[in-house]
């Protein structure tokens, strides 16, 4: 098989495993002049379940897993690290935090009958109602940092440390909700709209993702404390996609990962006409003045060649975003990856593929030095 990369596909067993073999014609050489890659073969086993995946790592059946380590497995893996069987590396803060967005399409069924749902104050109230530190402590066992926008500390120089934050402030949340027209008129502890109906809305999410399920449970609980009645509706991917595509939803809790830090590669999200301008899909022109401003800023920054200029423009875009909060962010987990002791040359990154991105420089320690 011909290939340009360091490895070529040798065998593929659908749904079970992929075997990549060394490409003898790969162009790169290391500093000492030796041909890369070092490894002869990489076998990727498709394990359907995270439990089984972790177990194989713990028992030495695999050398690494391509997912981040889950918080609940960290304790056990830390033990193994102490025994010398594994090495754990904290690669940094994730660049793909989960996000909560509200349907801002003005002609959707959401907009009719519940005008408070699309108000800026409503979103800002939610941003103040959730205790991000408790979120990080509970769902991620402390291995996460609070974030207030789509760009996290993991994005390096693109991150804006002085971005205005929506700190945990339930009183402020209630005040904002009052401005949006929601107060407790019926005395049941839940806020109601002008007609006395309880302010309820639903949050769609992908079923089967434990972290996200816990996150939404926590968010709902915090919202209830300020009087909002939210219901989580876990759906299967295709059903979720359909609701999002047809703008038939109130709110969605989801995430998407990027393969680069550069916002120039994320235009689909920021531009009004983008295919992932998720709060208002399918538009060819901006729906609001601030989205027009975002469009202008993003187009400018991607056209510039001066890095400092680009960072400045993008910072401005982030501030516009923070003023209107079309999408809410709460915490970004720390990316922790695990490899067996015998794997050397790994420089884990927060971007996927965390370890295999530089597969050509991975090597295995000599047999005597390995675990067992």
């Amino acid at each position, binding site marked *: 098989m011909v290939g340009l990369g360091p490895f070529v596909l040798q065998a593929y067993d659908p*749904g079970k495993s992929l075997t990549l073999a060394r490409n003898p014609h790969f162009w790169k050489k290391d500093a000492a002049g030796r041909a890369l890659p070092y490894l002869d073969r990489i076998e990727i086993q498709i394990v359907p379940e995270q*439990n089984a995946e972790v177990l*194989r790592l713990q028992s030495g*059946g695999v050398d690494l897993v391509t997912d981040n380590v889950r918080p609940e497995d960290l304790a056990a893996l830390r033990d193994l690290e102490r025994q010398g069987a594994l090495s754990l590396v904290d690669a940094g803060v994730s660049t793909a935090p989960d996000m909560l967005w509200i349907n801002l399409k003005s002609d959707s069924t959401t907009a009719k009958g519940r005008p408070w749902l699309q108000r800026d104050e409503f979103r800002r109230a939610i941003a103040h109602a959730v205790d991000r530190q408790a979120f990080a402590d509970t769902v991620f066992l402390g291995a996460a940092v609070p974030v207030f926008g789509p760009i996290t500390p993991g994005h390096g120089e693109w991150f804006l440390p002085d971005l205005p934050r929506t700190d945990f402030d339930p009183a402020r949340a209630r005040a904002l909700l009052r401005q949006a027209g929601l107060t407790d008129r019926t005395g049941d502890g839940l806020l109601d709209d002008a007609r006395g109906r309880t302010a309820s809305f639903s949050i769609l999410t992908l079923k089967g993702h434990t972290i996200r399920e816990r996150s939404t449970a926590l968010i709902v609980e915090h919202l209830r404390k300020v009087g909002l009645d939210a219901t989580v509706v876990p759906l299967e991917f*295709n059903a979720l*996609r*359909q609701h999002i*595509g047809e703008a038939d939803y109130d709110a969605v809790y989801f995430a998407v990962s990027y393969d680069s830090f550069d916002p120039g590669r994320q235009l689909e999200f920021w531009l009004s006409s983008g*295919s992932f301008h998720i709060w208002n899909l399918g538009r060819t022109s901006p729906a609001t003045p601030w989205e027009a401003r975002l469009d202008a800023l993003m187009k400018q920054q991607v056209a510039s060649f001066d890095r400092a200029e680009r960072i400045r423009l993008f910072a401005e875009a982030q501030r516009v975003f923070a003023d209107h909060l079309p999408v809410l962010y709460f915490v970004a987990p720390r990316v922790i990856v695990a490899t067996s002791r015998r794997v050397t040359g790994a420089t884990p990154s927060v971007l996927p593929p965390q370890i295999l991105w530089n597969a050509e420089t991975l090597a295995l320690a000599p047999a005597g030095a390995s675990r067992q």
Partner: protein
Amino acid sequence: MTSGLASFVIRRLAAACLFVLMVSASALMLVRLAPGDAVSQLTFTGVDQATIDATRVRLGLDRPPLVTLRDWFAGLLRFDLGTSSQYGQPVAGLIAERAWHTARLGAIVLLIASAIGLPLGIITGSRPGGWVAAITTPISIVLVACPPLVGALALLLFAASTGLISIEPGRLAVPALALSLPLAAMLERLQSRAVADAVAAPDLVAAAARGIPPGRLLWVHAARQSLGPVLGIYGIVIGSLFSGSLAVEFATSWPGLGRLMRDALVARDVWLVAGCALAGAAFIALGNLAADIARAMADRRVTERA
């Protein structure tokens, strides 16, 4: 009697074929009716709408469900089950391979479970106060009450921490144990009750009065009579075993039909879904057929005359 049995088998085979076809057709229609399709996975990945639409046409997913059904039947006549949209490989090949693994595991599980469960059931059913029953019954109840996922994980934990059994994917030991122990418990419970009922039946009491020794009475006559309800369930058991026990396959990474079906479902892989349904239905039909034949042979009085 043999020709009666033969015509019985032939009639059942014909019904089985019709059965398999209907189930597969229904599964096919259902997957077309479910929200989303194979191409909707491409949304949010940056692929433009034009490509998505073109792929949809290429896979034939823009046509009405009945047309899909017609195409599938046409393919079936040519022994062509279509190509999987997920893996790009012929469905027949994918299923054959997974079906073999599932059948392998299923056969072993069935053997182990029957070898343990049936004799134990006979003993506990005929001697409910004995020491065998005192030990077996509580264990049976625990195994029956244990959710399959928890049981499989517990076994995995045990295997991993003691190192006695290998947990490599593709090794039989853990999935076989995870499936056969609960099944043995279920068979034991059913058999136990069936024997207790059979032993109280008047014709057995009459036979005892005629002087047939108790050992023979129990292990030949009562056992044979009690097989009725147990064999009635066997068809279902075989069917479910061979279409794959999902939780166990997932937990132990066993490459069986259950996982294939589940992945096909999530990906809306239309032809693969139909093929998996076909395989599953075939197993159930065969299981029922085998069970019915066994019953007909064990208890000569059961024939299917109108």
